[in-house]
C-alpha cells in the first residue's frame, strides 16, 4: 500500500524533526502532528477505537499540555544561538555524531535479527475473543468487551493511574489550598468572535462526546475517548471566556467518587447471578458512562492545573519586570 508507506515516511521525518529542532515549542508541534499521523495510520490497521483515542488524547490534549507547560520556560532565540557557538557545544555535536553511528549499527543488527527470527505460533487469545465476545459480554465492539469485561482488572488500574497522575500534577503545581482559583485566573477573553462561536459549538461537542460514551459498546469509542471529548468542552470554554466556570475542588471530589463507583461496579462482574444477558449490556453502558465522566473530570483538572501554573509564572515574571 503506497499510502501507508507515505504515512510511515512522514512519521519518521516528523519524529526526527521533533527531536532535532532547537526550539521546544516547534518540537512539540511536530510531535503533535506525528501523533495525528499515527492516529490516521491506525485506521489502515482496522483500529478505529485506538485511532480515536490517539487523536483526542495523544495528539490534541498532550500537545496542549506540552505547550501550556513549557510556555515561559523556553530559551530565547539569541540564547540558543550563543549556546550553539560555544566550543562545548561543538564537543556535544561530536558526541551526537558518535552516538548516531553506534545507534545505526546496533539498530541495524537488531532490526535485521528481528526480521530474521520473528515467527508466529498462533493466536489463542484472538481465537477466543472474536468467537465468543458477543455472547459472553453482550457488547458489539470487541475492544469494549475486552476492556470493560474480560480485562476490566487492567482498566481499573488505568483509571487509577489517571487519578494518581492528576493528584501528582495538582500536588506538584501547588494548587493553593482553600483559595478560590477562579478569580486569579479570570482575565478578559481574547476575542469576542471566538467567544461567540465556541458558545455555539458546546452543545454539539457535548452531544458528540455523550454519543461516543453511550455507544461505546456498539461502535468505536467508549468512556476514555468520549470523556476526553467532554473535557475539551471545558478547555474550549476556557479559551473563549478565560474563566473556569466550575469549582476545581468539586471536580476533584467528583473524580474520586466516580473512581469508587467504577470499582464498585466492576465488582458486580464477580457475581454471576447478577450478570444475566440484559444486565450485561446495561452494565457496559453504565461502566462507560462512569469512566467517561471520570476521565472528563480528570483531564479538565489536569489542564486547569497547568493553566493556573502558567498564569502564576507570568504574574511573577511581570511583577519582577515591573519592579
Amino acid at each position, binding site marked *: 500500500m503506497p499510502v501507508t508507506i507515505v504515512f510511515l515516511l512522514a512519521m519518521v521525518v516528523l519524529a526526527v524533526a521533533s527531536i532535532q529542532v532547537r526550539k521546544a515549542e516547534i518540537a512539540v508541534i511536530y510531535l503533535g502532528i506525528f501523533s495525528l499521523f499515527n492516529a490516521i495510520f491506525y485506521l489502515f490497521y482496522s483500529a478505529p477505537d485506538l485511532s480515536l483515542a490517539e487523536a483526542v488524547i495523544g495528539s490534541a490534549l498532550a500537545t496542549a499540555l506540552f505547550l501550556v507547560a513549557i510556555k515561559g520556560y523556553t530559551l530565547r532565540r539569541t540564547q540558543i544561538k550563543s549556546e550553539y557557538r560555544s566550543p562545548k557545544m561543538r564537543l556535544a555535536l561530536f558526541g551526537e555524531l558518535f552516538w548516531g553511528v553506534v545507534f545505526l549499527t546496533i539498530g541495524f543488527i537488531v532490526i535485521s535479527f528481528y526480521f530474521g*527470527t520473528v515467527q508466529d505460533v498462533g493466536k489463542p487469545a484472538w481465537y477466543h475473543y472474536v468467537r465468543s465476545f458477543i455472547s459472553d459480554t453482550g457488547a458489539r465492539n470487541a475492544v469494549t468487551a475486552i476492556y470493560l469485561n474480560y480485562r476490566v482488572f487492567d482498566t481499573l488500574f488505568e483509571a*487509577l493511574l489517571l487519578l*494518581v497522575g492528576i493528584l501528582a500534577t495538582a500536588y506538584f503545581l501547588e494548587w493553593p489550598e482553600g483559595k478560590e482559583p477562579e478569580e486569579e485566573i479570570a482575565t478578559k477573553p481574547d476575542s469576542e468572535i471566538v467567544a461567540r462561536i465556541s458558545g455555539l459549538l458546546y452543545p454539539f461537542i457535548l452531544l458528540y462526546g455523550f454519543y461516543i460514551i453511550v455507544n461505546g459498546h456498539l461502535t468505536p469509542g467508549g468512556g476514555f475517548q468520549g470523556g476526553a471529548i467532554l473535557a475539551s468542552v471545558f478547555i474550549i470554554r476556557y479559551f473563549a471566556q478565560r474563566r473556569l466556570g466550575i469549582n476545581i475542588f468539586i471536580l476533584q471530589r467528583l473524580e474520586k467518587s466516580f473512581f469508587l463507583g467504577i470499582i464498585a461496579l466492576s465488582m458486580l462482574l464477580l457475581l454471576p447471578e447478577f450478570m444475566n444477558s440484559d444486565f450485561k449490556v446495561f452494565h457496559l453502558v453504565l461502566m462507560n458512562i462512569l469512566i467517561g465522566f471520570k476521565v472528563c473530570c480528570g483531564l479538565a483538572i489536569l489542564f486547569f492545573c497547568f493553566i493556573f501554573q502558567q498564569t502564576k509564572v507570568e504574574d511573577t515574571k511581570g511583577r519582577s519586570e515591573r519592579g
Partner: protein
Amino acid sequence: MIPGYLFVLVPIAFGTLLFFTNSRQAKRGVIIFQLALILASLYNLTKLRFLESHVSIETFAGWDRIIGISLKWDLVSSLFVMLTAGLFFFLFLFDYRGDHVDQLFLMLLCTIQGLIIGIFLAHDFFNVFILYEVATILVSILIMFRKDKQSVYDGIFYLLTNLVAMTFFLFGIALLYRMLGVLDFALTREQMALLSDRRALILPYTFLVTALSLKIAILPLFSWLPRAHATPSAPSTVSALLSGLFVKSSLYLFFRIRNIFDPFLELTELFLILGWLTALFGALLALSQKDIKLILAYSTVSQLGLITFGLSLNQDLAFWGAVYHIINHAIFKSTLFLSAGIISEIYRTRDIERIRGVGKGMPLVAAGTIFAILGVTGAPFFSGSMSKYWIVASAKDNLTTLGIYLANFGTITCFIRYSRIFFGVQKNSENSSCSLWKMQHIVVFVMGLFSLFGGLFARELIILFFAKQLPVDPLSYFQKIMIFFASLIGGFFVLRVIERTGILKKIRELDLSFNSVAAFMFLFFSMSFLYLSLKYAPQ
C-alpha cells in the same frame, strides 16, 4: 481462600475513601485496616500451606486464563503478601503522629500497598506492566513529598529513568504477544515450546531483562536507586518502604520472568557476574558516603546484588536462601531507615561524622539498630547469617565462595563505620532535649527483634512457611562464624587505612547524569542482546 484481587483493590478503594474523612479518623482507620489485612493474609497463607499443591490460581470474573487476567498464589508470593501487610502496619504505626501525615499521604501509601501486593500476585504480562506504571508515578510523588530543591531532581530522575525502563518492558511484551498470542505467564511458557527456533525469543527477552535490570538496580543501571531511596527530605517511612519492600517486588518479578524463559534461553552466568559486581561495588560506594541515609541506600544496592547472585546460582538451596534473604533484608533495612529517620531528626544532621552517642541517648533505638546491623552483616544467630549461609553453602567452587565472602566483607566494613554513631559523646547536647514520640522507638526496637528472631528460628520458620527442610551443617556454620569474626577484625584495619588515603571523597563524587544512565541502558541492552545472539548462534 480470600480472592487475591480483593487484596489489591480493597486497599486502593480504602485509600480513596480516606479523602472523604478527616485526618484523625483516617489515621485510626488505617491502623485498623492494616490489622484486618494482616489477618486476611495470614488466613490465606495457612489455607495455602495445607493445600496439596501449595498453588492456587484464580481468574478475575471467572474467565479462562487465555482471555482474562489471572492471579497466582504460591507459598512465596503469599508470604510476601503477608510481609507487605505486616511491614505497612509498622510503617503506619511509626508515622501515626508524623506532621506530614495527611489524607493524601495515607492514600498514597494504601494505594501503593495494593499495587505491591498486585505485583506479587500478578500472573499476566500486561497486568504487571500497568501495576508498575501506577507504582512508578506514586513513588515519584512520595519521593518529592516535601517538594524541596534536592528531592525535585531526585524525583524527576527516578520518574524518567523508570518510565524509560517501562517502555522497554512494554516493547518486550509487544514482541512476545505478536509471536505467542497470549499474555498469561504460564500460557506464554507453553506457547514458547511451540516455537521452531528459540532465537525468536532473544529480542523480547533482552527488552524485558533491560527493563528489569534497571528496576532491580543491577550494576550499570543502579544510579537512580540511592537518589530515590535516600532523598534527604522524604519521610523515613517512604525510604523504608522503597528500600525494604518496593524493590523486592521487582526482584521477585525478575525471578519469575527469568523462570519462564529459562528452559529456552539462559542468562544466569551474566547475572551471576553482574550480581556479584553489584554487591561489591555497592558496598564500596556505601563505605564512601557521609550521609547515613545514602549509606543505607547503597547498602541496599549491594544486598540486591547479593540476592540476584543467589537467585542466579540455579540451586534449590541458594534459591530459598535468597528468598529468605529478601524477607530478612526487607525487615532489617526498613528498621535501619526508620531508626536513621529518628536519629537524623533528633541530631538535625545526617552526617555520620557528627552523630555520636546514640547508644546513651536512645537505648531502645540503638538496640533495634544494632540488631538490624548484626542482621545485615550476617553476624552469627541473626537472620542475615542464615540466609547468607545457605547462599554460600550452595556455591560449588571456591571462587564463588570467596566472592560472596568478599562482598560481605565490604558490607561489614561499611557497617563498622556506621556503628560509630552509637559510641562517644554528643558534643552539642541542646538537641537531645527534643523529645519524640516514644512509640517510634518501640517500633524500631520490635522490628530489630525480628532480625534476631529470624536468625534463631530460621530453619523452623522455613519449614513452617515453605514446607522445606534446609540443612545446616554445624561445622561449616562454625567456619562461617570464624570468617565473620576475621572479616570484622580485617574490616577495622581496612577502614583505618582507607580513611587516611582520602580515596573515599573521590568515590563519593562519582555520579551519572540522566543522559549517561540512558546511554548505559542502551549499552546494557546491546550487550545482553549480542551476548544472547552469540551464545545461541546457529551452528
